[in-house]
């Protein structure tokens, strides 16, 4: 252990400095023990256990799709925050702000990264689900986590859907018109759904165009100013917030349900 100072490499010296040791207490992770410490001591890396069965690190088994989905969520959060600097969610400005993004900002591929990243995330989430199904990893004790995963997939699709409206182009408003009109047909709480006419006091319908679930989603009777703002808030804050809670549960449960699945 007692090496001469001159023989030590720069990295080794760095690893023994007070600054490094304050961050990673075990020094440069070189021995088995230090490497396990590096994982256990890091708030981010301790998502993982310190040791894994051999098959679990093979890309052929995991396809890495869950990890990529999480990575894409982070990429989308960062690019999304950057986009929010330029974008104003009003009918007047939304469309022109989107054009400005590509034309007046240097290296303006932020919107492309966000959009294609969102498409890619839908794919990686689906592939992750396919992998988990094909390896039978939803079986006990991981039933609950599969359910959380299904909800996360739904949230991914809902995030994509709410994001669709924001450019305020033809594609956006018609995709959203069709999507939200489904809510109009919600049984009992949509004004054109079965059973809605039963909810009435005398002649007065309780569920009508101005009081149903679609109205709550749109903030009005038509897709318009209020809708844009509501979808913006849902897309940027509400749904990511919920998704983050479920993601925390999802990752926690992977560890608690015995780590990554494998044959017994």
């Amino acid at each position: 252990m007692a090496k001469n100072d001159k023989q030590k490499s720069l990295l080794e010296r760095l690893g023994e400095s007070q600054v490094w040791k304050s961050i990673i207490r075990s020094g440069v992770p070189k021995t088995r023990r230090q490497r396990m410490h590096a994982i256990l001591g890091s708030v981010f890396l301790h998502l993982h256990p310190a040791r894994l069965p051999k098959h679990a690190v093979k890309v052929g088994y995991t396809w890495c799709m869950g990890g990529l989905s999480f990575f894409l969520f982070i990429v989308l959060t960062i690019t999304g925050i950057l986009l929010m600097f330029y974008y104003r969610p009003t009918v007047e400005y939304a469309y022109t702000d989107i054009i400005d993004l590509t034309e007046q900002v240097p290296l303006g591929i932020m919107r492309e990264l966000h959009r294609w990243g969102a498409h890619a995330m839908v794919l990686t989430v689906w592939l992750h689900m396919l992998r988990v199904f094909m390896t039978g990893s939803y079986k006990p004790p991981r039933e609950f986590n599969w359910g959380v995963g299904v909800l996360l997939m739904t949230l991914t699709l809902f995030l994509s859907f709410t994001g669709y409206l924001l450019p305020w182009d033809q594609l956006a408003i018609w995709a959203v018109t069709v999507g939200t009109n489904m809510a109009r047909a919600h049984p009992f709480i949509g004004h054109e759904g079965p059973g809605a006419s039963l909810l009435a006091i005398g002649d007065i319908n309780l569920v009508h165009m101005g009081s149903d679930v679609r109205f709550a989603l749109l903030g009005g009777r038509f897709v318009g100013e209020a809708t844009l703002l509501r979808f913006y808030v849902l897309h940027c804050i509400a749904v990511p917030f919920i998704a983050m809670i479920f993601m925390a549960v999802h990752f926690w449960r992977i560890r608690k349900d015995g780590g990554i699945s494998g044959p017994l």
Partner: protein
Amino acid sequence: MIDTFKSVIDALSTPTVSFTLLSIFTPLVFPPTDWFDKINRKFGIWRLWTKPGLYTGMGFITFFFVVGYFDPNFNITLTKPDNFPIILMIYSMFFFLWLGMSKAYVNDERIDKGLKPVEYNDPDDKVLVWPDLVYIEFISLILFMVFLIVWSILVAAPLEEPANPATTPNPSKAPWYFLGLQEMLVYFDPWLAGIVFPMFIIFGMMAIPYMDTNPKGDGYYSFKERRIGIFIFMYGWLILWLFLIVIGTFFRGPNWNFFGPFEYWDPHKVVPLNNVNLSEYFWVKMLNTGLPSNIMLRESLGFITVFAYMFMFPIFLAKTWFKDLFAKIGPVRYTSLMLFGLSMFSLPIKMYLRWFFNLKYIIAIPEWFFNI
């Protein structure tokens, strides 16, 4: 030569043909019983999961897209920036399905011989996450980021004309991942296709681990040990979700009419779509009387049909073919399996009824917004 190929593909891709063919192929590709397995072996369909199978499949998809790229009609749909994810989806889904299934076949053989699956390792012989896993994750996310940046530089994010509430683009499509739902909306009323079925998909998927009581195949790729489960899932996933997305992207043109991929999108294509309700078939065509004014009487046949399909049919099955299954999984699991399973298979049933009998609704009560 190429023109023959195009017209064959156009003819094959008509939903009546393509959907039927795929529905027949699915049980052969993922054989749920010994009988299907025998046919699978006889025709060598299992070879799809070998390396030549991969090359053939990839080659065919590529050939299809290359021919499509040089076709003036298909080129328009194919090169739309928003359709690029679909192309990516077709390739990646096929590749990963192949990967999983080929691994499953290897494991099936090992298990037949009494060996442990390939994934099995000595539980005491573990690897360290740092560096063995962390660097794999790091490399894959760097590669993925590079891919994403290149994609973003090459393909500009599409932006159509400013929103105009008065003009609906023709055709007007939902985001690609919802095109399966949009296709469903052609056959079912919004309250079913837009609310109830999506709920059933979500809850049905969440219920999979509770309905599938087969303890085998946990944590490794396998097919033989859980073939019925895999077959049902693959039918729903590949045919009723992904294939409907492909239909919605490539085969649906102006006025939501059906077009072969190499066909010109003629906005004036006339397709007779005079749809008739079951009640009209029964009262007007069979009995030659007018529709009764009492709604319940008018739709009684529809109610009986739906009731028989959703409630009597499962009871009948539980007493006959599914007797063993019912005894094994118990009434609660059986009921939910039947609820989700029969709802899932009601989609192809309704599609065929629409195609062959122009049947619109089995129960048609627009007065109450209650149509099935």
